[in-house]
């Protein structure tokens, strides 16, 4: 090919990659919902679990702590911050301990007699009112007089205060300067619910920014600090840490890769050409996922690029086998059967994930299959015309020759392979420790000290536990509220016996319509109440007519339509009730959140005795879900293995050759699994994906070693190719293995161990028999 046409082809290729890159960059929507990597829920409980995990009130809760040397400044900042967050569109509600009598809108004030349980046990008759007035007289000469006096004419029974108190969390931190403080009195505590779901790092990032801005404006002293904890804060933190560290490692790996390729091929053009198939593969994969699914999950993106890292090896085989006197096109044609077998079998293996029922894995499958196919085809058809015919010939290397001779002299310890395999299976089979990690937390690992800090804050704030929930199913909102109310007596018993510290459900804020009507019916009519009031006020120093506003409010309350969930829009109760009373496809679900549950068995007995109520153990349910997910992935892996064997068999058509190609890969997988388990690592999704990658790499090594012909020069070239491939991969994943983040570390160690195992075992078990015979 003439150099002009070469230049044109290169320019066209680079232009195509650039255009594809631009299109992908414009159209790509990166999703971050972790549930994409969960299997579709089978039961109503799992469905609820997934909703709870991603969007439930617990996942949206941010626990905030403001600290500083002067408690009064801290409290002032807490008040200003809460006010600012209440105005912010990023937050649904904020609580900092301030009594919110003032925040109840005027139209709900008269509802106090319908919402408060006072009338369930009492009547507004003369004796009751008399006792109330005596108490109010004492209030008036107590230090609280100034607070209560303005409300008394309208609310002599202090119903509003009782209501505001009952809406406070059942167990709340102590107050200092009117706001919640920790037990030591150093930190003001707040709880805020974000509008964005917990696992929506973009939404959470916006909330975190809004929070920081509000804090900067609200701070009353320069030496105050704000701390935020909770699933949302963690997802932002972890996303940023993973990105930062991945970027750092990516930078180091690129430098190392460039150096390695320069040393291996001593050519700058080769360096540039080597990057083109991989770039094309990545962009084509992204475009395919984007077209097929609309969005690409962040994890798909990260893993996808890890997985198609295999594609970096394809051009290297071409370069390493290139030498003087051979046309690059001819070279590519000669390598193609081996390369194509590797590409096809890996692609077929990944295809199995398309049917895993896990959307994230299906995305991953499309991404890698398209990416690897593009990388293989460009290496075969676009790259050869561009490869300089005169490159450094690996066969001329003296030391490679000596190395090959020494390798050839190595024994072929087939028995050792069998022993190692049996030992590894034994380790996995007989170990008492669980092989798998079933915690959902394993997918977004948060540093331990942050988790400890979170549970400390949760404890101080009396925030609900994240593990157990009661779930109430009902036909409509009223049905659910009635069932929740019916639980009250038994739950109160549990609280009294110390099995439970506190609980919360929607009916605590919004009684059933029936209960409201009952209380309404218990309110006396105008003349009756006036009479009772007069009798009660006799011989008290209250001025006549002082309580006329009370009479008016009661009269208004008698004719109000009872409140339903839809009437709460725009009130402080909306968010509280909304989080605990959910409507889904015409079906209503109520949640009972629990704080400080020490006796789950007692709760289970309570649930068994109630109808329409189930206990949801989020930990057990999520572990079940993860186990279910893993099972599907394992089935997929098995299917991939079968398909892969089939493809290799179809390509090689010889039982003993197939065995020699597949043995190192299978054995390496067993050895890595055994090693990880022996080192105390519990396996999760990331290990599995890393193992699949390692297996794909091993297959390529074995295929090329198996192909190595009788010609010593060709043998050296193959050794060179596999050495460059495995060294570059080992370098990248060894860098990941020393990462501080568990996710990156688990991928790094697994793949690095897999590369070493595959390389060594491919050398020992796959190299052509004839060479060995000659060496003997």
């Amino acid at each position, binding site marked *: 090919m003439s150099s002009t046409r070469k230049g044109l082809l290169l320019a066209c290729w680079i232009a195509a990659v650039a255009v594809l890159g631009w299109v992908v960059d414009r159209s790509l929507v990166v999703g971050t919902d972790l549930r994409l990597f969960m299997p579709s829920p089978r039961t109503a409980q799992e469905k609820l679990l997934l909703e709870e995990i991603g969007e439930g009130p617990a996942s949206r809760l941010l626990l905030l702590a403001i600290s500083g040397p002067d408690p009064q400044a801290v409290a002032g900042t807490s008040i200003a911050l809460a006010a600012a967050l209440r105005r912010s569109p990023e937050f649904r509600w904020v609580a900092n301990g301030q009594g919110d009598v003032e925040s109840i809108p005027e139209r709900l004030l008269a509802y106090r007699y319908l919402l408060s349980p006072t009338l369930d046990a009492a009547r507004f008759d003369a004796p009751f009112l008399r006792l109330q007035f005596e*108490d109010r007289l*004492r209030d008036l*000469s107590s*230090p609280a007089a100034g*607070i209560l*006096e303005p409300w*008394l004419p309208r609310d002599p029974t202090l119903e509003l205060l009782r209501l505001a108190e009952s809406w406070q969390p059942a167990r709340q931190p102590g107050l200092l300067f*009117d706001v919640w403080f920790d037990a030591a009195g150093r930190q003001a505590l707040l709880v805020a619910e974000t509008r964005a779901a917990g696992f929506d790092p973009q939404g959470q990032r916006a909330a975190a920014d809004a929070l920081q801005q509000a804090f900067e404006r609200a701070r009353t002293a320069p030496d105050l600090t704000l701390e935020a904890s909770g699933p949302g804060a963690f997802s932002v933190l972890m996303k940023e840490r993973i990105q930062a560290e991945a970027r750092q490692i990516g930078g180091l790996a690129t430098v190392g890769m460039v150096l390695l390729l320069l040393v291996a091929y001593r050519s700058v053009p080769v360096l540039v050409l080597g990057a083109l198939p991989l770039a094309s593969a990545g962009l084509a994969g992204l475009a395919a996922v984007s077209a097929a699914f609309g969005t690409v999950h962040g994890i798909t993106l990260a893993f996808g690029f890890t997985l198609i890292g295999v594609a970096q090896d394809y051009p290297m085989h071409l370069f390493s086998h290139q030498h003087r006197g051979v046309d690059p096109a001819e070279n590519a044609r000669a390598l193609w059967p081996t390369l194509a077998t590797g590409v096809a079998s890996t692609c077929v293996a990944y295809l199995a994930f398309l049917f895993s029922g896990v959307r994230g894995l299906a995305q991953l499958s499309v991404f890698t299959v398209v990416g690897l196919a593009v990388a293989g085809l460009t290496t075969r058809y676009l790259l050869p015309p561009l490869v300089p015919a005169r490159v450094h010939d690996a066969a001329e290397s003296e030391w490679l020759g000596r190395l090959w001779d020494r390798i050839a002299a190595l024994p072929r310890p087939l028995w050792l392979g069998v022993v190692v395999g049996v030992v590894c299976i034994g380790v996995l089979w007989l170990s008492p420790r669980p092989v798998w990690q079933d915690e959902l937390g394993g997918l977004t690992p948060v540093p331990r000290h942050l988790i400890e800090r979170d549970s400390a804050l949760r404890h101080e704030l009396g925030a609900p536990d994240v593990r157990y929930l009661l779930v109430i199913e009902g036909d409509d909102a009223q049905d659910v509220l009635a069932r929740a109310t019916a639980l009250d007596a038994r739950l109160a018993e549990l609280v009294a016996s110390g099995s439970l510290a506190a609980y919360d459900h929607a009916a605590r804020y919004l009684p059933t319509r029936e209960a409201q009507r009952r209380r309404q019916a218990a309110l006396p009519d105008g003349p009756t109440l006036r009479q009772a009031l007069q009798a009660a006020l006799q011989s008290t*120093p*209250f001025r006549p007519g002082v309580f006329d506003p009370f009479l008016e409010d009661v009269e208004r309350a008698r004719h109000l339509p009872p409140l339903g969930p839809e009437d709460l829009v725009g009130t402080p109760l909306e968010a509280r009730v909304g989080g605990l009373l959910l409507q889904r496809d015409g079906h209503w679900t109520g949640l009972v959140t629990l704080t400080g549950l020490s006796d789950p068995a007692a709760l289970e007995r309570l649930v068994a005795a109630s109808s329409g109520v189930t206990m949801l153990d989020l930990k057990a349910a999520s572990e079940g879900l993860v186990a279910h997910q893993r099972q599907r992935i394992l089935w997929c892996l098995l299917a991939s293995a079968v398909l892969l064997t089939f493809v290799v068999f179809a390509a090689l058509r010889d039982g003993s050759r197939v065995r020699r190609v597949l043995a190192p890969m299978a054995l390496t997988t067993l050895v890595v699994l055994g090693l990880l388990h022996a080192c105390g690592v519990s396996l999760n999704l990331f290990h599995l994906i890393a193992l699949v990658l390692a297996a794909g790499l091993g297959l390529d090594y074995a295929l090329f070693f198996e192909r190595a012909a009788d010609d010593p020069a060709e043998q050296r070239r193959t050794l060179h190719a596999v050495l460059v491939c495995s060294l570059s991969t080992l370098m990248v994943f060894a860098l990941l293995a020393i990462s501080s983040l568990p996710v990156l570390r688990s991928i790094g160690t697994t793949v690095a161990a897999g590369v070493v195992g595959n390389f060594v075992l491919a050398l020992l078990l796959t190299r052509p028999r004839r060479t060995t015979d000659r060496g003997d």
Partner: protein
Amino acid sequence: MLVAVATHAADLDTDTLLPRLARPAPDTTTFVEVRYSALLSEPLVASGSLEHRQDGALVRRVTAPYRETTTLIGENVLVEREGSKPRRFSLDRAPELRGMLASFGALIKGDRALLDRYFAMTASGSDGAWTIELVPRDPKLAHRLAKIRVDGEDDRARCFTMTEPDGDGSVMAVGVRDRTDLPASLERGTLQEWCADGNPR
């Protein structure tokens, strides 16, 4: 100029008066408090004791006509009454209470800085019958409390009179045991005169 100097000389100076009033903790004194409210046709009277504890807390104990204990520790107020749930709130929500605490507490502790933080002070009268007037500096406090007047003689305070902007208020006479120690009429003017009258009882 001469007049000003003369007035100054005749008036009592808060700097000389305040140290005289300081009492070392623990210290307990009895009180009778009369509360006036627009809601009421006649004032409420409560009597009991005020204790200044070693740990800095102030305890207001009502013993008649009912029993109630209010404990002020730092910024927190705890009201415990026989037969009802304890009530907690902070001084920020009860500015008049902060006034009482600041004036009474600071006076018996001799804490000039605390007084200056919340009030502008003026003193008048003589050793035998003096008056200190405290006007809140903070608008939030002034919204709920117009002024505090402390009447006394020699080294002891006699009455703390709190006036709210709407005309409500209270008079707390200290060092007296019960209602019978006060004048027969609890009409505001009468009681104020009684407070201002420096005659030793």
